């Protein structure tokens, strides 16, 4: 089974040594999908649900050695340290081309963030 398909019920304890760099692991914690991955030397635990429109972050692309995560539904890129949106790649084809003045569209960096979650490491186990 691929790492992104592993789903476990609570409580979740994962051997730290089983988490390989460059891969996203998907677990169910208290009924919610959670992803775990390495960002350089830091472990990141976050909600698997993209804060933009709910995309599946278990299928996201890790960039910059895990320091950034790109959602597969719209390509939004998140900073995995702060959760902030780093890039909306679609803005390049939207804002450069628009001729219509939309009264309901105000280009700005979204304020929603990747939902980073706390975790503990005890005796070589990651406790989610």
């Amino acid at each position, binding site marked *: 089974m691929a790492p992104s398909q592993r789903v476990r019920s609570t409580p979740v304890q994962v051997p730290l040594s089983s988490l390989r760099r460059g891969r996203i692991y998907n677990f169910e914690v208290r009924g919610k*999908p959670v992803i775990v991955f390495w960002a350089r030397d830091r472990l990141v635990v976050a909600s698997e*649900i993209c804060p*933009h*429109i*709910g*995309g*599946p972050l278990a299928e996201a692309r890790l960039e910059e050695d895990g320091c950034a995560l790109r*959602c*597969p*539904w*719209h*390509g939004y890129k998140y900073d995995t340290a702060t959760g902030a949106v780093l890039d*909306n790649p*679609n*803005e390049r*084809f*939207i804002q450069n*081309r*628009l*001729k*219509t003045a*939309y*009264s*309901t*569209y*105000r*280009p*700005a*960096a*979204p*304020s*929603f963030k990747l939902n980073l979650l706390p975790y503990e490491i005890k005796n070589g186990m990651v406790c989610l």
Partner: protein
Amino acid sequence: MKFAFRLTEDDYDYDVLTAVTAYLDCEHYAWLHARNYSHYEILEDGPTTSRIIQHSKYWFLTFKQHHFREYFPPSEFRMASDKPFPIFTHTRFAARADGGVHRTVDVTMQLPWVLWPLRGLLAAHLRRYDARVYGEDAAAAARRAKYLGKNNWLWAFRPSQFLLHKDAVMAAFSDQIAARGGATAAAD
């Protein structure tokens, strides 16, 4: 040679506004549907019209298509595409009594005569293509319903969210949007 046929007629358990916002969410085409569309770019837009360049993959070929799209509020769309030959589609989303949506897509193709004998094959391929692409949209709607709530479309009306013809959509569905709290509820 003109070949007109009904591409599909199907039903989904989400509402019309969910279907309309997904259709006009241009940001997702080259990402969620990356298997079918390798590039998407707005060339021109108007209040209810747009001209798009989209690279569509059919079989092993990629066509750099120019699309002219027109939105007829509240939930009807016409599109003219230039490659590999002129293709016109007419998509309608109609509300069902049970709160779901009924989707109808009609297609007219101007086929070169050499392709006329293959029209059945082309129609079958387009049906599979549509089922795959729209299936991805339906699966996305189902996932949103699971985690964010059924008929979740407020995201589309966040001020920072671009949606093609957003003003026209918000005007056409103003009652529904207001009932959910309007722009305040949709805020970033």
